[in-house]
């Protein structure tokens, strides 16, 4: 009734190929972005910025990057935490060692470092496939864990092994309060989501998807696997690296390599799979699900006034988290994005049966 495209005629290719061909979609997304930029800073509490909104934004950015690699190009990676770490430590080194380095430039250069390493670790993907590749990417994970712990140069010879940044500002505006941090991350996420959306619906995105669906067939029709796979690794690790920089600089402030351990990689992979492989919106759904779930589970016993000791509570959280993930995979193996798409199809016909 409300959601239908009748009467929206496209008279040029340009109009037909825009990101949101349906007017209602475009309006909803614009409204959502406007709401996030203009209304949320006045509505949400300081706690929710710190504990929910900023982590959600940064992790959705990382999930977005991982989705490019896993969802669009079909290369399973368990080393996302490593690329986040490289982004974070790369940005840190540029930020600390180069005097007067602007924050955004440092973050992007950190992403650049992650890109280089990502391409390096992407080279084996030309020969190693599937689950073998997944385990092989763990090499990147454990190697970076070790490198940032043991090689003192990366941490600027910090004695404790943890590093910190302070006095963040963009063009003279400080990034100090939770609201400023939130807006800063939001701007990054919007720009990168737009870039990623445009990449995956363009030439290169179609090459990635061809490789994902069947790489031999893709090679036969003239897609260069080397180029397609390595660009996917490059784009993915760049986005993940920038997300890592944001996570370290903006969310944590001071951090050590444990912030980017293998658990982080698994967590991001969960986001991508539960959200929906090969879907930009899915990355956001997955991040929201995985960020909110533990917080909800922690809050529930207190909410119902059930006294429960902390060790048991953490074990129960583990159990419920695991069970819910299995449940979700069984009910909708294609992720929340598929539920969303089904819902939209239904909405187009509503309230008529056909």
């Amino acid at each position, binding site marked *: 009734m409300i959601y239908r495209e009748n009467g929206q005629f496209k008279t040029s290719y340009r109009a037909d190929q825009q990101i949101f061909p349906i007017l209602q979609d475009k309006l909803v997304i614009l409204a959502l972005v406007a709401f996030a930029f203009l209304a949320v800073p006045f509505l949400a509490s300081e706690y929710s910025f710190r504990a929910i909104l900023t982590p959600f934004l940064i992790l959705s950015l990382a999930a977005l990057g991982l989705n490019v690699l896993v969802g669009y190009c079909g290369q399973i990676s368990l080393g996302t935490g490593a690329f986040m770490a490289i982004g974070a430590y790369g940005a840190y080194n540029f930020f600390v060692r180069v005097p007067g380095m602007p924050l955004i430039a440092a973050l992007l250069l950190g992403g650049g470092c992650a890109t280089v390493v990502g391409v390096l670790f992407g080279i084996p993907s030309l020969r190693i496939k599937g689950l073998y590749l997944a385990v092989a990417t763990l090499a990147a994970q454990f190697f970076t864990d070790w490198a940032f712990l043991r090689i003192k140069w990366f941490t600027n010879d910090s004695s404790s092994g943890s590093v910190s940044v302070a006095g963040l500002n963009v063009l003279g505006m400080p990034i100090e309060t939770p609201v400023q941090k939130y807006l800063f991350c939001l701007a990054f996420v919007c720009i990168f989501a737009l870039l990623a959306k445009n990449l995956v619906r363009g030439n290169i995105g179609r090459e990635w998807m061809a490789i994902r669906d069947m790489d031999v067939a893709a090679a036969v029709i003239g897609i260069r696997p080397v180029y397609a796979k390595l660009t996917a690794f490059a784009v993915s690790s760049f986005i993940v690296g920038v997300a890592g920089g944001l996570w370290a600089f903006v969310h944590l402030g001071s951090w050590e390599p444990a912030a980017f351990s293998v658990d982080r990689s698994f967590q991001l*992979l969960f986001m991508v799979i539960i959200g929906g492989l090969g879907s930009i919106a899915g990355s956001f759904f997955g991040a929201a699900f995985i960020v909110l779930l533990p917080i909800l589970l922690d809050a529930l016993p207190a909410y119902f006034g059930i006294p429960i000791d902390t060790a048991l509570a953490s074990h129960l959280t583990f159990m419920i988290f695991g069970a819910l993930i299995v449940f979700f995979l069984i009910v909708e193996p294609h992720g929340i994005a598929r539920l969303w798409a089904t819902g939209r199809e239904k909405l187009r016909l509503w309230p008529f049966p056909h």
Partner: protein
Amino acid sequence: MGFFLETLFGGLMAGMLYSLIALGFVLIYKASGVFNFAQGAMVLFAALAMARFAEWFPKWFGFDNHWLAIGLAFAGAMLVMIAVAYIIERLVLSKLVNQEGITLLMATLGISYFMEGFGQTLFGSDIYKIDIGMPKDPIFVFDKVFEGGVLINKEDLYAALIAAALVVVLSIFFQKTATGRALRAVADDHQAAQSIGIPLNRIWVIVWSVAGFAALVAGMIWGSKLGVQFSLAQVALKALPVVILGGLTSVPGAIIGGLIIGVGEKLSEVYIGPMLGGGIEIWFAYVLALLVLLVRPQGLFGEKIIDRV
């Protein structure tokens, strides 16, 4: 020379233990095409069950015989693992037939979270001991051959022998029994096996139980060496490079891969480690596996991967 041999033996024995865990991965992957990340959690779960049963049974049934308690605890833990296998097959695997590999992998990660939480809720989360009477004193061998001899930990030696025995038992089970043949048939081709009347569901329960058995033995040995605690679940991460180095589909590959990784880790830690600042064990195994995969993408003994359009 003596020192080198000592490191080498140490590596071989550690490798035998890695093989034990890797075996669990390979068995399940061969029979059901599931890359079972929950193997580490299963090791923890089985070891916890056994450690606590050994404590509880004497109290419940009022007897005071250490060996009886250990034996009963082992049997009890095995029953628990069979139950786990049955529940996993019923509730998870049978619902996820025909899904992609990565979905199954994430499902086993979910299972592993669940089992880590459930195991510690049920059995407690302290450090427990399993005392299976392994001697702790080291022995010297080859002291006739050269001066000083080679120091070997007796405990490691027994552990390696138990592991080797388990491998032999499993090989016989796979080669000689009717069930073993059915398992191999399923591993080769699900549809063909089903069409000649092999019940897939039952086979999966059996293979997960066998993997549970391997997890129990691994958990018992690791547990008696290091104590049963949460970090036991992390040994799975040590077994992963073993699995891909040897080949996901090969039982001998898991054994030989384990030995290679065990030896490589120890030698690198001793001879290369000091140059790089130590602690390189964990990534060295992965990089070694990665290098081998670059030459043989299917691992040393895995089935050749053939791409068809």
